[in-house]
């Protein structure tokens, strides 16, 4: 058993306890204040919650690897629940080629081709909704509906079974945490959902022009292998839906909580881009990721022993008052650049430009029709070991 140095703060708290997941802010503040590194005895991991150390650990892939798993499970000693991701759970050199292929396919220039149709899709969705009602659940009506409308088409998977995407993602993100009740809840459907997702990654199933087909084309050029291609598609399907659904929910929730910011956006539509990243900073849809020390590595004055896991609190870093002024406020006047909501370094979210484009389309469609919005009922969180998520965000809007 590891014996922490006497100067190292130790905590017996459980960051994955349901009440903490329900409202993690207090816990995270206490963790930040306890020190740059805190030993979490329950899981035998080292927690980083200040911006400086989280940023440093995210970028230092040489010292903190991903291939031993970015969840609590240590692949050096345990078998992962599914074949590891060749992006998220890989280190250089294996990580290089799949990453390069996907960065190109999901790069801002490549996405320009989708812009017009996504803007149109957002307009149609918002028009349909607002012609029926001015009071609705933002999650089901918009933030889940919109990504599910555009993203699977962009990847090129068939219509049948798309309802599996959210539960599959939900489980995958739960599985980064400990084997608690949230993981248990997902367990009965794992085989079925994984089977369905894996089937969608096959070349014959995918349309000829989507991200999926482009991944297979990269395999034909030899940029990745044909064995890697379906796993790269799987990464898109795992990481591309729940994250954007929650990112969009974060930004709409933020506007409903801060009506004056909505007015600001309506005055200056170019703020849509900043708004999304500020919401990602503020709510951090992806709250945590783990890494594993590849050697004894000093960080924040503590030596992390080789093979031990660190737990990086992206959400806590994004609200660290040492880095951000009034961090708990959602403010379009702030420049959220440099937040770690998408991670940082070689594993930084490769789909960030996709998420930004989805948000820009949706916010722009809403901004031209909605004068103001407010919370219209109890907001319910959806608990997940990794994601800051919502079950329901009831809103009432005033049309312009």
């Amino acid at each position, binding site marked *: 058993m590891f014996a922490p140095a006497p100067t190292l703060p130790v905590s017996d708290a459980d960051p994955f306890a349901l009440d903490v997941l329900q409202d993690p802010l207090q816990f995270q503040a206490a963790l930040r204040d306890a020190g740059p590194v805190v030993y979490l005895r329950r899981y035998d991991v080292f927690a980083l919650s200040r911006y400086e150390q989280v940023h440093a650990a995210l970028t230092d892939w*040489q010292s903190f690897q991903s291939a031993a798993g970015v969840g609590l499970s240590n692949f050096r000693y345990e078998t992962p629940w599914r074949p590891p991701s060749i992006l998220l759970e890989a280190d250089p*050199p*294996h990580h290089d080629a799949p990453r390069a292929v996907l960065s190109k396919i999901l790069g801002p*220039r490549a996405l320009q081709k989708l812009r017009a149709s996504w803007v149109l899709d957002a307009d149609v969705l918002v028009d349909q909704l607002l012609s029926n009602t001015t009071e609705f659940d933002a999650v089901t009506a918009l933030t889940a509906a919109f990504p599910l409308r555009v993203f699977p088409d962009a990847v090129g998977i068939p219509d049948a079974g798309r309802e599996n995407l959210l539960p599959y993602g939900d489980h995958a993100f739960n599985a980064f945490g400990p084997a608690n009740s949230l993981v248990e809840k997902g367990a009965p459907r794992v085989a079925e959902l994984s089977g369905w997702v894996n089937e969608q990654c096959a070349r014959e199933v995918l349309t000829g022009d989507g991200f999926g087909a482009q991944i297979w084309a990269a395999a034909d050029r030899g*940029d990745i*292998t044909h064995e890697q291609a379906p796993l790269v598609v799987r990464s898109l399907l795992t990481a591309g839906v729940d994250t954007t659904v929650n990112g969009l929910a974060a930004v709409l929730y933020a506007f409903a909580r801060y009506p004056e910011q909505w007015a600001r956006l309506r005055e200056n539509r170019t703020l849509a881009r900043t708004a999304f990243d500020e919401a990602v900073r503020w709510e951090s849809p992806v709250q945590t990721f783990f890494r594993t020390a590849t050697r004894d590595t000093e960080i924040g004055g503590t030596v992390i022993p080789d093979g031990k896991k660190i737990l990086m609190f992206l959400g806590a870093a994004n609200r660290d008052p040492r880095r951000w002024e009034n961090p708990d406020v959602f403010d379009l006047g702030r420049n959220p*650049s440099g937040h770690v909501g998408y991670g*940082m370094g070689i594993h930084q979210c490769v789909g960030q430009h996709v998420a930004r484009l989805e948000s820009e389309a949706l916010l722009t469609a809403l901004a031209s029709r909605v004068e103001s919005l407010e919370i219209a009922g109890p907001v319910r969180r959806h608990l997940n070991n990794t994601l800051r998520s919502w079950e329901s965000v009831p809103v009432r809007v005033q049309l312009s």
Partner: protein
Amino acid sequence: MSQNPVSSGTPADAALRVDAKVVVAEGVVALTLRHPTGRRLPDWAPGAHIDLVLPNGLTRQYSLCGDRWDAHSYRVGVLREPSGRGGSAYVHDELAVGDLVGVGGPRNNFPLVPSQKYLFVAGGIGITPLLPMIRQAELIGADWRLVYGGRTRTSMAFREELAAYGDRVVFLPRDERGLPDLPAYLAEATDAKVYVCGPGALLAAVEKCCADWAVGRLRTERFVPKDRGAPLRNEPFEVELARSGLAVTVNPGATVLDAVQAAGVNVLSSCRGGTCGTCETTVLAGAPDHRDSVLDDDERSAGDCMLICVSRSCSDRLVLDL
């Protein structure tokens, strides 16, 4: 001529210090570069190159040939090019340990793709991008071979490092062994991905043998002993922000992103190192001086966008869609 990179158009932030300069073969020096504050350098993968912005205003591209697991230093090998316009001569004759040089990139047009088997073919200084590839091929346990040709044995850089790999490496100094029998080596390399770097004649000879190969099996990088076109600006330049109706001056020590920000226009950025693509900005007029790792050659020459956290201007004025 100024030795101070800040006054020679190099953003202070991207200037690296020459930490070591070692003769590694006849006419070849290896430079080790570090950040003056010792901080991490941008990540790279085998095949990547950086732009070296020399204190005499010339920019040249060099393949990174060091260790990517060392995040704090870059190594490049520089051949003295008698026909060049002074970039390599400057490195050989003037550049000294302790000098600061501007750096753009890294960028990678020659990435190592996955394979169980590789054949590497190097001509002269073309060995540089292949060195880190070889290390990785070894690391993943791939079956690989290097055919390394050069003028004379003493002109061939990094021989000692390579000798450690034993008979996986074939040294072919021309004065002792003549020209390599390329068709024979290539014919032997069934199922291998073939990486070739060297002078045009070598590439042409290899390409002739591989004309009917499947796409993507042969990967080449031409070693071009040419200094890059446009001379870099030593002076400040103007940036006009079309949508905001503002104009700002970008001084040599500041980035375009800094200057725009200082004018009160918020532009979203993330990595601030030219790698993530977040700060991509549309260019309406003017000629950007690209220093990022994101855009490929076609996108660069289109000149209609730039990554303003690192890229600068070749023209007096840039007009951005901000």
